[in-house]
C-alpha cells in the first residue's frame, strides 16, 4: 500500500504546477471564456513541448509513454489551473480511443500529430437522447460502396469546432451495443457544427451528420465493437474529470480559507467564526475524500485492474462532493465570489460541467448498485 506519489510523479506534479502558474494564469482562463477558439495556439504548442499532449502516447508514436495515473496527476493540476482548451478532449477522448482501438495505420497517422500538437481529435458520442448508454446512439452508419454513410445529430461534442478529426459513434446494427466508431475529418461534406453556450464556458458543439461519406478505413476497431471501446474511454474520461475536480476542489478550499483569514467583519476575520470554520472543515473533508477515491480508481485503471466499481464510486462521489465544495465556497465568499472578476465562480461553473461529463451521480450509482448485488 502506498498512497503517495512517487518521485517522478511528484516532479511531474510540481513542474506542471509551475508551468501552469506561468503559462495559464487566471487572466488567460478569463480571456479564453470569451475567445472564439477557447484556447491559444501558443499555449497549445507549449503543451506539446512539455510532452503533455503525448504524455500517455507510447514512445513509438512520438509520445512520452507514461501511465494513465501520471496523466491523472497532470489533470489534477490542469483542473486546479482550469487549463482552457481541448487538452482533455484530444488527449483522453481522441488520443486514448485511437490508442485503445485504432489500427496500426490509424495510430501512426494520428498519435504523433496529437503528441506534437498538430492534430486535435475529439469524440462525438452523445446525441439528443443525452444518454451514456449504447441505446442512446441513434445516429446511423449505413454500409455503401466501399464505405459508410453517416446520418444523425451529435450533441455536447467537446471542442469539435477546433478538431481536425472527430471520432463519431454510430449505430451499425439493431443490437443494443451495435455501435461502431468512425474517424471523420471535421471538414467532411455533410458535417456541420454549431457551438453551444454552456455554464462552464467550455466549447461543446452540436454536430449534424447529413449523408457524410467515409471510407472503410475510417472505422476504428471492429464493426459493432465500438461500445467496448467507448466503455473504456468513458471510464478514463470519468476519472480524468475526477482528477480535474480534485485539483479544482483543493484550489477552491485554499482560496476560501485564504479569504476567511483576510476578510474582516464584526471586527475580526470571518475565519474566526465557528460557522465559517465548520464550512471550511466540511470542504476539507470533501476534498480529502475526493482525492483518495479518485486515486484508487485512477491507479486501478492505470494498472489494468478491474475498476468498473471503483470508477463508478469515484465519479458518483466526487461529482457531488465538488458541488458541495463550490457551494460552500460561494457561501463563505459572499457577494464577491459571484463577480466575473473573481475566480470562485470560474470554478463553480466548471464544477457543473464536470459533474455531468461521463455520467452524473445517478448514472454511476446505478452501476454501484449492481456491483453491490442489488
Amino acid at each position, binding site marked *: 500500500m502506498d498512497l503517495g506519489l512517487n518521485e517522478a510523479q511528484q516532479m511531474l506534479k510540481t513542474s506542471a504546477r509551475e508551468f501552469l502558474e506561468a503559462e495559464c494564469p487566471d487572466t488567460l482562463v478569463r480571456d479564453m471564456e470569451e475567445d472564439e477558439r477557447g484556447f491559444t495556439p501558443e499555449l497549445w504548442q507549449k503543451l506539446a513541448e512539455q510532452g503533455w499532449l503525448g504524455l500517455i502516447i507510447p514512445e513509438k508514436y512520438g509520445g512520452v509513454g507514461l501511465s494513465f495515473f501520471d496523466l491523472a496527476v497532470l489533470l489534477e493540476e490542469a483542473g486546479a489551473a482550469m487549463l482552457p482548451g481541448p487538452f482533455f478532449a484530444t488527449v483522453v477522448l481522441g488520443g486514448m480511443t485511437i490508442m485503445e482501438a485504432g489500427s496500426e495505420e490509424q495510430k501512426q497517422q494520428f498519435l504523433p500529430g496529437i503528441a506534437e500538437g498538430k492534430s486535435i481529435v475529439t469524440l462525438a458520442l*452523445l446525441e*439528443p*437522447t*443525452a*444518454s451514456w*448508454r449504447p*441505446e442512446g446512439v441513434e445516429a446511423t452508419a449505413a454500409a455503401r460502396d466501399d464505405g459508410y454513410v453517416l446520418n444523425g445529430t451529435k*450533441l*455536447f461534442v467537446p471542442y469539435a469546432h477546433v478538431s481536425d478529426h472527430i471520432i463519431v459513434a454510430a449505430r451499425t446494427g439493431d443490437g443494443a451495443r451495435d455501435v461502431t466508431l468512425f474517424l471523420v475529418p471535421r471538414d467532411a461534406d455533410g458535417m456541420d457544427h*454549431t457551438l*453551444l*453556450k*454552456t*455554464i*462552464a464556458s467550455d466549447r461543446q458543439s*452540436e454536430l449534424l451528420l447529413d449523408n457524410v461519406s467515409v471510407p472503410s478505413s475510417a472505422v476504428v476497431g471492429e464493426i459493432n465493437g465500438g461500445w467496448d471501446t467507448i466503455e473504456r474511454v468513458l471510464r478514463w474520461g470519468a476519472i480524468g474529470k475526477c482528477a480535474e475536480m480534485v485539483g479544482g476542489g483543493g484550489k477552491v478550499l485554499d482560496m476560501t480559507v485564504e479569504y476567511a483569514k483576510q476578510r*474582516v*467583519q*464584526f*471586527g475580526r476575520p*470571518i475565519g474566526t*467564526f465557528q*460557522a*465559517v470554520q465548520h464550512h471550511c472543515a466540511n470542504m476539507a473533508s470533501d476534498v480529502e475524500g475526493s482525492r483518495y477515491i479518485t486515486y484508487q480508481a485512477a491507479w486501478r485503471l492505470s494498472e489494468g485492474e478491474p475498476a468498473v466499481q471503483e470508477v463508478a464510486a469515484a465519479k458518483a462521489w466526487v461529482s457531488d462532493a465538488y*458541488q458541495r465544495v463550490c*457551494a460552500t465556497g*460561494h*457561501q463563505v465568499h*459572499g*457577494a464577491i465570489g*459571484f*463577480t*466575473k*472578476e473573481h475566480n470562485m*465562480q470560474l470554478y*463553480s*461553473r466548471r464544477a*457543473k*460541467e464536470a459533474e*455531468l461529463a461521463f455520467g*452524473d451521480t*445517478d448514472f454511476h450509482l446505478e452501476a454501484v448498485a449492481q456491483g453491490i448485488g442489488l
Partner: protein
Amino acid sequence: MEIRFSAEDEAFRDEVVEFIESELPWDWRTQELDSEEPEDLKLVQQFKEKLAGKGWLTRAWPKEYGGQEASHMQQLIFNEETAYRGVPVDDGGVSMVGPTIMMSGTEEQKQFFLPRISRAEISWVQGYSEPDAGSDLASVQTRAVEDGDDFVVTGSKIWNGAHSGANWMFMLVRTDPDVRKHRGISFIVTEMGLPGITVERIPLMWGASRSLVTFEGVRVPKSGLIGEKNMGWYVGATLLDLERSGVGNSARATRLLEDLVDFCRENKRHGRPISEDPVTRSRLARMAVDIQTSKLISYNVAWMQSQEQIPNKEASISKLFGSEMLKRLYGLGIQVLGMYGQLDPESKWAPLRGRFERGYMSVAGNTVAAGTSEIQRNIIATRGLGLPRG
C-alpha cells in the same frame, strides 16, 4: 384557525391574476433572467406603472399616502401572484423606503416621496452594503459630514442595481465616527444624478450585474435625512424586518416546479418519460413538500403582521428556509435536466429557456443577500431563542 383566504381576498387574487395574464406577456420572465436590456427595463417600468395605475403597488398603505388600506393578506396575495409570474414590482420603494418614511419621515418627506413611490414615478437602489460592510452592516464607513444645508458624502456603496438607471438611493451613512458602530449612523436618501457620484458596473457570473457606486464629496441636501441624525441604524432596522416576509421564494418555486414537472412528463430518458422515474418522482415530491412548508411559514409571517404582531424569529426562519429551499430546487432542477442543464439560454437546445441554468447560478446569491443564512441562524438563535451571544 382558518387556513383559507376570505372570499374577498380570493376575489382580489382573481383580479390580480387576470390583470397580469392579460397585460403581461406570459413568456416574459425578467425576474428570473435579471435582465439589463434597455427594452426589458422599459417594459418593467411600463408594467409597474400599470400596476400603480390599479393602485396595487402600495395597496396596503394608508389612503392618505396613496394606498388603499388593504390587509397584509392582500399584500401577500399580490406579492405571491406577481412572484409566481416573474413580475418585477418592487425596487425597495414600496416595501422598504415608503414604510420607513411613513414611520420616521417628516410631513414634507411624506408628501414628496410617498405619492411618487405609489405612482412608480421614482425608482430606488439600496445603499447599505459597502465593500467592507457586508454581513456586518453596522460597520458602514461612508461618511456624511454636515455642511450648511447639505451632507457631504464620501465613500462607496456596492451590490446595488444603480447601473439600471434608478434615480434615488436610500442609504446608511456614518455621521458620527466617534461613537460605537451601531450609533453614529444616519439613514438618508439621495438622488443619483448629483455631481460626484460615479457608477461602476460589476458583471456577475450569471450574466447580470451589480454596481459599485462611489461618492466623492457629494453634496446631498439635508432634506434627505430620514428620522433623527445618528439614529439611522434603528430607522433602518425596522426596514430590515419588513424585507423578510419572503413569500416570493415559495411563489417562484411553485412555478419552477410546475415547469419541471411538465418537462418530466414531456421528455423521455432511457425510453420512458422522466416523470416515471421513481428517483426523480421522489425528489420532486420532496421539493413540492418543501415549497408547501415554505409557503405556510411565509403566510404565518404575513398573518402575524396582520395581527400587529412583530415577526422576528419567524421572519428569519422564513428567509432562511425559503432561500435555502429555492437553492435546493434549482440544484434539483438543473440535475433533472441532465446534460441539458448546463446549457445557457442562448443555446438553441436549452430546455425551459435556460432558466434553470441561470437561476442555478443566481440563486446562490439568495442565501447571501439581505442577511446570509448564517446571519439568519444567528438571529434565530440569539434574538429568537434567547441563546447568549458569544
